[in-house]
């Protein structure tokens, strides 16, 4: 007989490799390609903004957990890092650091910790931070540096509007879409990412690469992104067929703006999206419809952030609607 003490615990005695940390770090890894593209086009600014956002988010979470809530500090779970990266990816690389710090504070303190921390927040924290900045500092949040390939100088970049912004402005002034499209980057630029825009949203290619990684690692499923992107494609496609002078083509819509970043990385946030397959599809369709409405008929050129936040609010209801069917009937 051994004199060693052995553990006694109820089953199950094994656990899958799956963990919150793994999910969070996988998301961070999946965002690396987009980060690299942003460095290529926005230079030092992209690095600075991303690092500051991450550091601020971790710091605020640490301070709140340690001194305000007095609970065990869990900044190592990776969720603050992901929030930081996503916040940075949703702002222009020219944003002043102090402004970004405020955004990080709203992200962590208001949108996450005040609800009880990880898993308790009803809205995507990074998007709350982003929208807060957009409303408070509209000028800074809508002047995008023009991409300059491999330029690491610290000089202030030339700024301009995004493709969606130019389109919106032009349409408002009564120009026809085909004429406006001449002045807007082509599909290839949109796909690669050589466009004006937020740090992480510019390259469709990099984002899809990252998303493929998340799919392989089973962190996300296709339900939300596909229903979201497909809805935008169909909806804008119908409008384009009806009136191609007033509306841009569907391919342009799915390649531009924050759709790819939002659909693959923000709308799929587990905490703020539905649990069931059908719930996820409804959620994605809702995001798609709202995005198109805001882009085409709203005041803002881009609607991804608002669309996802609005749909976040419907998640409890969606979850109630799509309960799993009991084995063997109710």
């Amino acid at each position, binding site marked *: 007989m051994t004199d*060693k003490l052995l553990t*006694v615990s109820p*089953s199950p005695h094994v656990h899958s490799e799956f*963990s919150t940390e793994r999910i969070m770090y996988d998301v961070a890894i999946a965002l690396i390609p987009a980060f690299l593209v942003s460095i290529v086009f926005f230079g030092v600014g992209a690095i600075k903004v991303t690092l500051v956002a991450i550091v601020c988010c971790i710091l605020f979470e640490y301070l709140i957990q340690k001194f305000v809530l007095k609970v065990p500090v869990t900044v190592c779970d990776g969720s603050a890092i992901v929030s930081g990266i996503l916040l940075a990816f949703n702002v222009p690389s020219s944003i002043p650091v102090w402004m970004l710090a405020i955004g990080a504070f709203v992200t962590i303190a208001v949108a996450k910790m005040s609800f009880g921390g990880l898993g308790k927040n009803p809205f995507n924290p990074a998007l709350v931070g982003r929208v807060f900045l957009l409303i408070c500092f509209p000028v800074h949040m809508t002047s995008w540096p023009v991409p300059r390939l491999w330029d690491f100088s610290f000089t202030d970049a030339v700024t301009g509007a995004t493709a969606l912004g130019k389109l919106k402005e032009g349409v408002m002034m009564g120009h026809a879409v085909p004429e406006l499209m001449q002045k807007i980057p082509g599909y290839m630029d949109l796909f690669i990412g050589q466009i004006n825009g937020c740090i992480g949203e510019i390259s469709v290619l990099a984002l899809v690469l990252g998303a493929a990684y998340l799919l392989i690692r089973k962190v996300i499923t296709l339900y939300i992104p596909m229903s979201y992107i497909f809805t935008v494609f169909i909806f804008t496609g119908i409008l384009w067929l009806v009136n191609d002078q007033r509306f841009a083509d569907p391919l342009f819509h799915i390649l531009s703006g924050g759709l790819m970043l939002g659909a693959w990385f923000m709308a799929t946030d587990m905490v703020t999206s539905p649990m069931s397959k059908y719930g996820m599809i409804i959620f994605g369709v809702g995001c798609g419809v709202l995005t198109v409405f805001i882009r085409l008929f709203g005041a803002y050129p881009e609607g991804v952030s608002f669309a996802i936040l609005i749909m976040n609010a419907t998640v409890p209801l969606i979850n109630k609607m799509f309960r799993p069917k009991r084995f*063997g009937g109710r």
Partner: protein
Amino acid sequence: MPSLKTFSRGGVHPPECKISAKMNIEVLHVPQKVSIPISQHLGAPSTPLVKRGDMVKVGTPVAKTSGFISANIHSSVSGKVANIAEVVDTSGYPRKAVVIDVDGDEWEESIDRGSDLKKDISLSRDEIVQKVLESGVVGLGGATFPTHVKLMVPQGKKAEILIINGVECEPYLTSDHRLMLERGEELMVGIHIIMIALESDKAIIGIEANKPDAIKYLTGLAKDYPGVSVQTLKVKYPQGGEKQLIKAITGREVPNKGGLPIDVGTVVHNVGTVLAIYEAVQKNRPLVERVVTITGKSVKKPGNYMVRIGTPVQDLVEAAGGIPENSGKIISGGPMMGKTLTNLDVPVVKGTSGILIIPLDESKRKVEGNCIRCGKCVSVCPLGVEPHLLYALSKRGDWERAEKEDVMNCCECGSCQYTCPAHLPLLDYLRVGKAEVGKQIRARHNKK
């Protein structure tokens, strides 16, 4: 290649770790002392038939069935009854057991100990049921439900399909696998005996695809047995659960809230049980031993042993080379549903399918975090309940709502907790919920 059959909802695929799959079944030495609990089965504990000082042989009844759902128990050794004492069993609680000091190995004369295959079945339906009842056969898959009850088809029902459970979906365990490979002929006869008892003309043996040798061997044998066939199943836990297996093979769902397999025209028996039925009916041999896997990543000599009921786990562990240095936990059963042992004097009972020794670094749970509402627990639940919700309800003691949300449907397979990225003790709280809600339901019944 068409995709393999499996159950449709939920399930997980933990690493299989079937370390002992190639080890032949060896006969474990007869221990010096056995403790035979009088409650080794589901249902009422049996009534002891012996007292201190009585001499018994292998196969002598030591306790008799005490109700419809109960079972006979026989001595697994020859010797002298030392005591009727409280012995800590797999449950961790002291339970009454017949303790026997072993002396020699003398068997009851009525038992046929020969290993020749007896193919001809001479008994009638009722005689088969009677024989199984007398021999103390219970479900050896783990649930230990008295087998004779499952051989009697209630009036108005029909057992269209007999399903034989050779799934062994728990990681590590290989006792059923070895049994299928080494005792295939006897299994086939056993299946025919059950088909006679149930008046069923179709039997399907369900085996997961990770046991290709057993599938091939039994498929070959089945050719000589009309009505018997083998169904290969996709590897997915908990396919060995009765409801999941029926769903996987027939597509039928056993109705909720007290539904039985017979309600959908099926009866399920584990391969170990089938062998016990064969031995009871053809060899007049009561259930006194069973195959037990002893395994673990750092166990020196993992293997499969034919073990006398009542043998201390210690003897089995010694046969496997003792407890490895880095051990952290010893489990009776598999890693998904097995129970942790509190000491090594615990006897092997009818429901012991394996002993698993887990290394220290895998034996402790990780710190739990917050639920991140990923919905994984819901998607892996084979019964379609919502573990995260029941966990929260149970935590705050809302038993009324927990009952409404079907906490009682939970089969405790552990898939939810296995998969939870926040490492929440979901099943712990579901068990608490089941216990409390069960108590309330019983109280309501008693009032009526």
